């Protein structure tokens, strides 16, 4: 791996995080928002593997990434459960319906 590859992967990391955050803002379905959260974390995972590679400690990078995957999956499950609940209670998944609390 050379310098340029590192740069490329970093751009991919930022790209994935960016696309994820953008999804959170424009999406009109909670499920899609959770997909956005997943995308962000994919980027971060890549960043950790890259960090492990650069610092010469692939083992640590991988074990951290593994932990992140576990945690993120739990968060996704919780979020999906909440989305199911929202669908039942609000009758829609549109986050823009979630504005009973404001001002």
């Amino acid at each position, binding site marked *: 791996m050379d310098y340029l590859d590192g740069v490329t992967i970093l751009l991919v990391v930022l790209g994935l995080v960016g696309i994820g*955050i953008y999804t959170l*803002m424009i999406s009109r379905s909670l499920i899609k*928002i959770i997909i956005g959260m997943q995308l962000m974390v994919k980027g971060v995972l890549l960043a950790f593997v890259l960090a492990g590679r650069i610092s010469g400690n692939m083992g640590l990078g991988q074990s951290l990434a593994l932990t992140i995957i576990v945690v993120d999956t739990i968060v996704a499950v919780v979020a999906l459960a909440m989305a199911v609940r929202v669908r039942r209670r609000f009758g829609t998944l549109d*986050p*823009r319906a979630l*504005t*009973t*609390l*404001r001002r």
Partner: protein
Amino acid sequence: MINGWLLLLPIGIPWLGCLAVWLVGDRRPRLQHTLAVIFSILAGVAGLALIPWSTQRLTLLLSLGGIFDAFRLATDGLSVFLTVVATVIGSLAVIFSVDYMHGEHSLGRYYAFVLFFIGSMSGLVLTTSLLWMFVFWELTALCSYALIAFHNDDPKAVRGGIKALIMTQLGGLGLLFGALWLYTYTGSYDIPQFLGSPNSVPPTVLSWMAFGFLIAAAAKSAQFPFQTWLPDAMEAPTPVSALIHAATMVNAGVYLLARFYPAFEAVPGWRFAVMVVGMLSAFLAALMALVSFDLKRVLAYSTVSQLGFMVYAVGAGGVFASQFHLMSHSVFKALLFLAAGAVIHALGTRDMRQMGGLGPSMPFTHVVFTLGALALAGIPVLNGFWSKELILEVGLGHGNPTWIVSLMILSTGLTAAYTVRMVAMVFYGRGHQDHHEAHDAGTAMKTALIPLAAGTLTTWLLLGPFYASLKLSLPHHKLELNAVWEEAVGKAGVSEWEMTFKVGLEILREPSTYLVLLVVVLGVAAWLGRARLASLIATFRGVEKAAQASFGFEAINEVVVQAVQRAGEALRATQTGYLAWNIFAILLGWLVVLILTMLGRAG
């Protein structure tokens, strides 16, 4: 020294009483009345018991450590005097309340806060740590707020209470920052140490402190430009007005200025600013009192005006004169307020236009009220006369600006005019139909009024001893009455009581005294002959209008409050509740912080 713990009594006893009254609960009002009276009288005794220590220093120091320094209490002439005022007038107000508050709701809350106030006020004057002075300062503000808003169902009372709280707090920031600066430069909050060496603080900071304290004092003593909260505070039950908003708490500002006078005396412009603040308050408030129709408001404006005299006196270099007037004013204003309370209690209204002709039906109240009014107007030989003369004497000497003292003398004339107007409107003239059965003051009320009336006649006799004790116990103040008098009265072997008479004679010998008396007489005459002066008065219509609108200060308050409220309301629109915008806000934060940090890094 075991005696140091004595100092905790005037604070502790009322606070204990506060707890006791609150624990008794509102189901046993008789017991509450009794307990409150017992504890307040005990507090009064504790306060009086400190008098022997007014010249020797009695101290108590409880170390707290860290930046909180220590809890310090100490006696000197000034603090003992004000403790006595707080506890004695406090107990009289409590006794008065037995009749006045009879059958009221939430007596427990009332008495608890009154007793809490008495303790806090004693603490405020006894402590020599600026941190704890601020603590007690705020505590008195808290009690004042709670008692003004005692009738919580009345929106006017609530507004008045919150206004008083916020304005005094706002001013209190001056004291707060002053204390912080003091700590920053000296590493302690010890007041005597600071008074001894004010130069331990750099000159610019010292002047910040001086003006900060002036702001705090002005807010607490309802001086220009913070005077507006005091009239609104009149929603409080009348004994509270007498105690807190006439006799004690509002004096705290004057006390502050007097206490720190030696440190700030040399700050350029400070004395002048104090004089101007005092003069403006004295003069404008007197005008407002002249045109107001609410009995308690007239008294409130008159309090502002008289406090203006005291503040002016401090600025003019007459610390003793200001404290002496404070003593007189506490007594006669408490008397006036409590007597007014008896009237209001009997009639159920505060509007003077609804009164009139009450003299025959309330003879006792009539006599004591008039006595207080004469003292307020500065008629000899009542206590108000002597102390006011002292202030004006100071103003004429010391190279103080003459135009300010002229306005002060004019204010004494106005004082006389509104006093006569007040007494005439309440007790003389055509009676109102429905007030013929107005009952005179009850027993408890009389018990409270008689000592005050006696005091109004006699407290000026204390001039000599009071002066001696202050002079002995305030080493940094370099007190003097007047260079010429000092020679006449200060000879060795002259006893303290003799001194009273010597000073009295000196006052009577001064030509300026007669000038002031002439102005007072003119003021009285102006009110009595107002029909003849109609054309002259007409030219002052504009002033009257402006005075009734309290010279626009209410409007300024209102604008500030409205602006803050609007800002709060407008900002709520930013809380859209949309998840997308919330995340956008995060992004925005990220961007801004990123840019700022990088700029900071480059810079």
